[in-house]
């Protein structure tokens, strides 16, 4: 144990004292903060506009649709305006759509030149009981999203027309069509779900990044020591297992230190600014103590899992180039986590999330999300920790054997049968 401690301490001190550590400690929060605030800023400021034309032989329908889509200042539209709905400019065109080849050509030309973002072609119904046919021709797939806006507006317009037909006064019709507004009342337990998601997401991203970064650091430092041939001196006094453990612990503590610095800085900042926090930006990080504790638990599990794989990869290879060919083993599970992130974030208690969170390579990241945002059963939390710990044990068993043989092997990278043979040596 003493040797493990010595090696871990050396590794820790050497890494903490580098300029690289200082730079990443300062830069990563800056970059991440910049990204988050930047994207929020862009979202809030950028309002897209679109210019479309409505072509109909029924002038009234075209005009109604125009006023529905393009509310005049002061008169609130009956349509609830989604935050990101583009501001529309609508031209109503009164042309017989039965025979509008010339119009079509003209409109298409305008689409090409970019004067128009799309046009709605309304073909009148064959019989009055039927609805007319609507065709929307967008300039590009980008404008295709307008279709749902148009459909909603058309629905309202047609509904109002029907109501008018049945002798209902326009004012009454407007009142009937007034959209229902459900206000999101504050939940008693999760006071600020939105900001909880943001906080958890930031921690998730942090965990992902630190595990990847420091896992790679373990592999890289093993390769470095392999090429500097320091191993043989060490192996003459200590066991390869001790070396590997020391290295993983040392590098991992550096990662924990870094995360610790970031978290305490974040806590200090939010405590300092207190209520004066710029909540107007819509970004407010709220984390409970339990979330932070679970973060560290799953961070340590994840780091141990991936860094012991990385240690094995490092022992098998002789150069960083060779390591990059094997990186897939390390990155693939992490990428899967990222791919399912949105789904788990939205439905943290879905069957998929529950199953994935119990599979050891995904547990640290996904179970952490579930614990923070969902309602996993106690046995699930317990099982996830137990399963991951067991697989960490298995991985360490395998990699320490690979390590023992691999660190003294120079030259070509081993193939699978050779690796299996290495497991038999000990």
């Amino acid at each position, binding site marked *: 144990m003493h040797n493990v401690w010595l090696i871990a301490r050396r590794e820790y001190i050497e890494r903490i004292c580098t300029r690289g550590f200082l730079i990443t400690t300062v830069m990563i929060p800056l970059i991440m903060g910049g990204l988050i605030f930047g994207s929020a800023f862009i979202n809030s400021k950028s309002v897209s506009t679109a210019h479309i034309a409505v072509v109909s032989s029924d002038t009234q329908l075209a005009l109604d649709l125009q006023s529905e889509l393009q509310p005049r200042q002061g008169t609130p539209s009956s349509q609830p305006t989604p935050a990101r709905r583009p501001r529309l400019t609508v031209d109503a065109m009164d042309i017989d759509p039965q025979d509008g080849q010339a119009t079509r050509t003209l409109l298409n030309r305008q689409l090409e030149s970019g004067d128009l973002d799309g046009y709605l072609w309304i073909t009148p119904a064959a019989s009055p009981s039927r609805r007319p046919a609507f065709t929307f021709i967008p300039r590009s797939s980008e404008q295709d999203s307008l279709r749902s806006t148009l459909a909603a507006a058309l629905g309202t317009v047609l509904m109002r027309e029907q109501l008018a037909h049945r002798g209902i006064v326009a004012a009454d019709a407007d009142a009937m069509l007034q959209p229902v507004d459900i206000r999101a009342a504050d939940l008693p337990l999760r006071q600020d779900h939105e900001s909880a998601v943001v906080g958890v997401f930031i921690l998730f991203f942090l965990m992902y990044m630190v595990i990847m970064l420091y896992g790679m650091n373990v592999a890289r430092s093993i390769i470095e020591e392999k090429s*500097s*041939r*320091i191993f043989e*001196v060490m192996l*003459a*006094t200590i066991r390869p297992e001790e070396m590997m453990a020391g290295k993983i612990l040392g590098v991992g503590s550096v990662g924990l230190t870094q995360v610790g610095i970031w978290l305490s800085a974040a806590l200090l900042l939010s405590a300092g600014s207190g209520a004066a926090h710029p909540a107007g930006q819509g970004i407010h990080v709220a984390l409970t103590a339990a979330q932070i504790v679970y973060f560290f638990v799953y961070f340590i599990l994840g780091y141990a899992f991936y860094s012991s794989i990385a240690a094995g990869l490092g022992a098998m290879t002789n150069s960083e180039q060779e390591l990059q060919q094997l990186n897939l083993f390390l990155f693939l599970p992490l990428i899967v986590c990222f791919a399912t992130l949105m789904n788990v974030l939205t439905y943290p208690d879905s069957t998929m999330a529950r199953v994935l969170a119990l599979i050891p390579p995904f547990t640290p990241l996904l179970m952490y999300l579930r614990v923070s945002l969902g309602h996993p059963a106690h046995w699930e939390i317990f099982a996830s920790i137990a399963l991951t710990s067991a697989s960490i044990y298995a991985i360490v068993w395998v990699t320490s054997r690979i390590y023992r043989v691999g660190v003294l092997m120079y030259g070509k990278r081993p193939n699978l049968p050779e690796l299996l*043979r290495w497991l038999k040596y000990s």
Partner: protein
Amino acid sequence: MSIVQLHHIRKVYDTKVAVEDLSFTIEPGTMFGLLGPNGSGKTSSIRMMIGITVPDSGSVSLFDRPFTRSVLGRVGYLPEERGLYKKMNVLDQLTFLGQLHGLTASVASRRATLWCDRLDIAEAIPKKTEDLSKGMQQKIQFIAALLHDPDLILMDEPFSGLDPVNAFLLMSTLVDLCSTGKAVIFSTHRMDQVEKFCKSIALIHRGHLILSGSMREVKSGYPRNRILIHFEGDDAFLQHPSIESLSRYNGHAEIRLRPSPTLADDAQSLLTQAIRHARVTRFEVMEPTLEEIFIEKVQQTLPVKNGKLSMAQLEKSDGGELDA
């Protein structure tokens, strides 16, 4: 009491036999030379002595007991592949390695300073390892192997890459340690280095032990039939009947005499002849060198194509370095 005892050890890597049926014993206070061309199994043998690798069969005993890792505190090892942490300064590095060998930090750093003084590299102490010359790094590594005052010192090619002055400095350090009762084993493929210093040797080739024993025993098995002569003038005396073979160089010749019970007289008669014809400036009767003995031994055990074998050929025949 023996420090190292190898008993029929054997090690095979995949299909390559690195060491085959190797046995020898090393007593305390012995300077032991492990000799052989590159790839003959020297490094593999040394690694097995300290448990870095485990023999496939046979046994290793250190200090009269079957090998266990607990004795490693009494062993100092300088590997063939040198390696140090590049970014660490010399004192920290030596202290760290000393601590791994069970010293306390203060003892380790005090001894490190003393050793650096002794080996003339005191000015390197505050420097980073990567800023040092290769020779200096090698001395640091040398010190690292000795810091914990081991009873058994294993040095794999300790002098490769050193200039003669430094090689001599390290060699005499080892001789000093040896005289205080420690056992020193070093491997080398430079046989001339060993002749002066080693008390015992083992010659290995392709993993097989060719020859072992004390230097005196080894040499006494061979007659003093080598003659080196420096001369000016007529070389007709080189037709002397007792000469078996000779190599002529500019101003001197190396002669091997025919085996005979009257070898010493043959040499005298040759000298008389030479003086008669030429002006002799140097005449020396010698035992064969270790290198010659080694080549002769290998030739006896191996079929040889061109009759005469050189060290270079021996090395080539093994197909390069065996690292593992």
